[in-house]
């Protein structure tokens, strides 16, 4: 009796297990991933960083580009880690927005540091069956050692999205996660949100 009741459940489970990898499998081919990152780099340099427009316009252009190409929702969820479970949906929502804006603003501050560097995509590696790593190097035109940057891609909303950037072995997502974990443990997600909101204000003012 119980077995008969459970059988369909097992079948459902089996289907789910078999179907899951297929559903989750990244459809991003190495060529597609490399072209995607090359496109981001070219557009980023020509239309944003080195474009001859005021800083405010640059920031806006960057914001559009960032929202279109980065899977910030996935990153934000990863960054919160265990704290995202059972958290107040309103605070989660607030965090998503603040995290996105915070990232836009800190990148925007760095445009001035641009000094003719070039980004060279050097290869790809599968990220299990979940996505793709695109490897690249930032080459300084004045010499000096190249900086290794790895982009972690996931298929989201029907296209590749960047979910993490790993600079010389340091993952941005993991660093945020570790930083925020300390704050949330002390003062909760709402405490973190308040501090992030303050940072965003400071960055806007500066």
């Amino acid at each position, binding site marked *: 009796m119980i077995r008969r009741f459970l059988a369909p459940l097992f079948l459902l489970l089996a289907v789910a297990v078999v179907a*899951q990898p297929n*559903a*989750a499998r990244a459809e991003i081919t190495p060529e597609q991933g490399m072209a995607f990152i090359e496109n981001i780099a070219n557009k980023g340099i020509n239309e944003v960083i080195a474009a001859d427009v005021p800083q405010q316009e640059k920031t806006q252009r960057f914001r559009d580009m960032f929202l279109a190409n980065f899977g910030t929702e*996935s*990153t934000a*969820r*990863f960054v919160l*880690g*265990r704290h*995202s*479970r059972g958290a107040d949906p309103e605070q989660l929502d607030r965090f998503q927005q603040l995290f996105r804006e915070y990232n836009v603003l*800190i990148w925007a*501050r*760095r445009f001035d*540091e641009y000094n003719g560097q070039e980004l060279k995509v050097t290869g790809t*590696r599968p990220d299990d069956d*979940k*996505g793709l*790593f695109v*490897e690249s190097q930032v080459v300084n035109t*004045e*010499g000096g*050692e190249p900086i*290794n940057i*790895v982009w*972690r891609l*996931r298929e989201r909303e029907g296209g590749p999205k960047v*979910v*993490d950037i*790993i600079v*010389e*072995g*340091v*993952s941005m997502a*993991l*660093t945020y*996660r*570790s*930083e*925020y*974990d*300390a*704050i949330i*443990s*002390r003062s909760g997600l709402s405490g*973190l949100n308040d*501090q*992030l909101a303050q*940072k965003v204000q*400071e*960055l806007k003012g*500066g």
Partner: protein
Amino acid sequence: MPTTVIKRLAACVLVSATLTACAATPSGNDASVQSMRDNDPLETYNRAMFQVNDAIDTVLIRPVAWTYKNVVPGHFQYQIDSFLNNLSAPVVLANDILQGNPDRAFNTFMRFMLNSTFGLAGINDFAAEAGFPRHEEDFGQTLAVWGVQDGPYLVLPILGPSNPRDTVGMVVDSFLDPFNYLARANSAEAFPWGRRVASGIDTRAELIPQYENLKEESVDFYATIRSAYRQRRAAEIDNITESGDLPEYDFGNGAMDGAAFDGDAFDAPAEEIQEGGQAQ
């Protein structure tokens, strides 16, 4: 004798670190659980030392590094950087060998030979152009390759982020360095210190403006540096740029996201910390 001073300093740091670690036995409250997860049982001391270091950096180190970076012509900076790197080649070579990596050892050997001669005593990185790119190794990394765990996070006075393994490594490196012995034999006792200060300024100058940016931007600068230091060390130990191994962690997919974090490889270190805690 400079080395005696270093030894004593390191011994003090290690002893006080161990003592404090023993004193800070987890009492089960949230703060100590958090410290265990971060492998940072000395967090209170570490944060205080971090503040002190940051203050010293603001009033002394950064101004000197800034002046160096903005006043000294770029070409000389390159030569000084190359010269200091070439001086560290014997220690890098020793660690390449101790890690059982003949390819890297050969690379370092060739670099030292080429740069000391054609590179005019190291002021030009001739070897890099000849196809022998630079890499770093130190005894802390060698210990890691031999299987020694890093131990709890430790902020050293002035020297900054470290851990017991890397602190021991730093002391061993100073003993491995033939130039230190040469200097002592020639009564040039100030040389190792001058060189250390120069390396410090050189490195600090390279971090302008990244350090300042990070400091302004991060919500918890201490936790950011702690995480970045560990990730960077792990990458250096794995010689990441060659092997290409990346930390494993899961971004999850769709509805599975919440569950994916439970199996996350980065929650694993908490167990190691507990083991380390028991060992003390």
